[in-house]
């Protein structure tokens, strides 16, 4: 409810000023990191910071060369894409059945799983993965990501599946379509919105995840967040390269998610803050 129904000019100015300030506060670190990424060591260390400076691309070069950036970029991409694909294939049919057959106990178990602290499982995973050869593999990382993607996806998709009238499926069955066929040809196309929402949110979650690859990925499958952390250790006070690394890594997820903003917002609204 609107508490300040201020229509006066000063009221409006104050309001918009506040808005700008708020945006500035929240956005400042982003502005800072992009700016610093173009600075050499001297400029980066300057206090008070100068407003204008000549930018340099050296930091980015350093990141590309030293930090095995492209390998890790490749790893991150593969893991994310595989996770998203596996997630859809595994979660959607399960969610469909729960929606159609109203198994409430299943949705409660899902909710329960969502609250588990994963650090707790990392240790047994590490041991098991090492024993079964899943350590430092894409499959291992994908599996670990699925633990939080599946409950979330199943739960989120429930509403979408329930919205499809059963009659449309029945018509397909009468037309001669198998249940599996109906699912693929009729039901899935109709929940396209849900799929995009899941993929948008999933991309963000999977791209950003740090703890799992930290433990479960070795030299070959390190993802970008892990790489950045390593980079941090090697370039302690070198703000320039560090900024370049930080900016590069978060750039894809920012671009992708903001491009699908509508679905992201919808996902948050439905997920209630995960």
């Amino acid at each position, binding site marked *: 409810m609107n508490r300040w129904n201020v229509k006066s000019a000063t009221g409006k100015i104050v309001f918009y000023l506040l808005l700008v300030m708020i945006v500035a506060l929240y956005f400042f670190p982003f502005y800072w990191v992009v700016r610093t990424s173009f600075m050499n060591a001297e400029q980066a260390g300057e206090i008070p910071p100068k407003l204008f400076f000549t930018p340099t691309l050296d930091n980015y070069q350093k990141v590309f060369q030293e930090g095995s950036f492209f390998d890790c970029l490749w790893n991150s991409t593969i893991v994310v894409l595989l996770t998203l694909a596996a997630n859809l294939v595994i979660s959607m049919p399960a969610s469909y059945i729960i929606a159609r057959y109203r198994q409430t106990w299943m949705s409660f178990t899902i909710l329960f799983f969502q609250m588990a602290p994963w650090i707790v499982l990392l240790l047994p995973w590490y041991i098991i993965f090492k024993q079964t050869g899943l350590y430092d593999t894409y499959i291992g990382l994908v599996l670990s990501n699925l633990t939080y993607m599946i409950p979330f996806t199943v739960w989120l998709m429930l509403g979408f599946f329930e919205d499809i*009238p059963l*009659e*449309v499926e*029945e*018509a*397909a*069955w*009468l*037309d*001669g*379509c*198998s249940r599996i*066929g109906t699912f693929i040809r*009729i039901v899935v*196309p*109709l929940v396209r919105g849900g799929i995009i929402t899941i993929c948008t949110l999933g991309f963000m979650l999977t791209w950003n995840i740090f703890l799992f690859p930290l433990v479960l990925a070795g030299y070959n499958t390190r993802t970008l967040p892990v790489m950045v952390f390593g980079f941090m250790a090697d370039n302690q006070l070198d703000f320039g390269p560090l900024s370049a690394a930080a900016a590069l890594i978060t750039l894809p997820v920012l671009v992708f998610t903001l491009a699908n903003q509508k679905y992201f917002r919808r996902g948050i609204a439905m997920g209630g803050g995960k």
Partner: protein
Amino acid sequence: MTQVRLEKIRKEFGLVEAVKEFSLDIEHGEFIVLVGPSGCGKTTLLRIVSGLETATSGDVYIGGQCVTRVPPKKRDIAMVFQNYALYPHMNVFDNLAFCLRLRKMKKPDIRDTVQNTAQLLGIAELLQRKPNQLSGGQRQRVALGRAIVRNPQVFLFDEPLSNLDAKLRVNMRAELLDLHHRLKNTAIYVTHDQLEAMTMGTRIVVMNAGEIQQVDEPKAVYARPANQFVAGFLGSPAINFIDCSLSLEGEDLAVVSAGLHLLVPEERRPRLEAHLDRRVTLGLRPEHIYPGRTADAAARFKALVRLIEPLGSEQLVHLQVEEHTLVARLDPSVDYRVGEVAEFNVRMKAANMFDPATEDAIY
């Protein structure tokens, strides 16, 4: 040839018996209408025939083969849903072509079949549109087309016209029948609208609370209802029920009630004699009452005119006879005034009589 046979179908939902021991034989080419109030089990029965529901007990035969355990897609039937159930993400052409593609028909054949069906239904220009771009009547035709394209043994209709406005409904009724005659197929049609049932069915099945009340041609069911429920359900305005008693007066048998003394015609006497001196429910349809101008004193009564509803082609006159209220359907040429007392006659040969205890008809 019996196209569809239903043998002792029963359906229970938990403790509720939705369908009680339903048996029916349907011949090829028939247009069977299942009619009854909401919840009478007609839709459940239709879905059992289609295979979307399984009966608790009993068997379904289609084309001579027992299909009780056969899944819907193999029963060679087609169903038109109340809400059309079109595929929202496909255009009209794909909606119609869907099942043909599943049968792996060749592309040119698919195109021809779909085009022909679309022509038949007058939707040929709509083939590229999506369901949400169509009006209710157009969607209905696409739903019909989907069924026709399959060329099934039996057509099933689940109240297909109930979502259309009145005028469209009348048109579609005629079109459906026309199609039925052209395609020469067998159809089972479910509705709660008694007018649809009367005008469309070759035979109608009146259902109530999961049980068949009567199966017969519309005219027969109308003229000789099997019980009070059927009599009251069909016909608009509804039949007039009057609580009477039978009395033997010399040579004549009469139904008597306050203000009414009507002689029973010869043909009806034998059956009624068993109910002598017991109560009887008299059923008079509005059209069986007419102005009392003939010298037929045997079936005449006086009544107070309470309300007149002029409909143009006829007038509905509400009459009061002592404590009974009757509705009569009269020719518009006769002028009545509200409050006047007039004389009316009854066509007793067409009247129905029912046993008050069982509500069954007495013939």
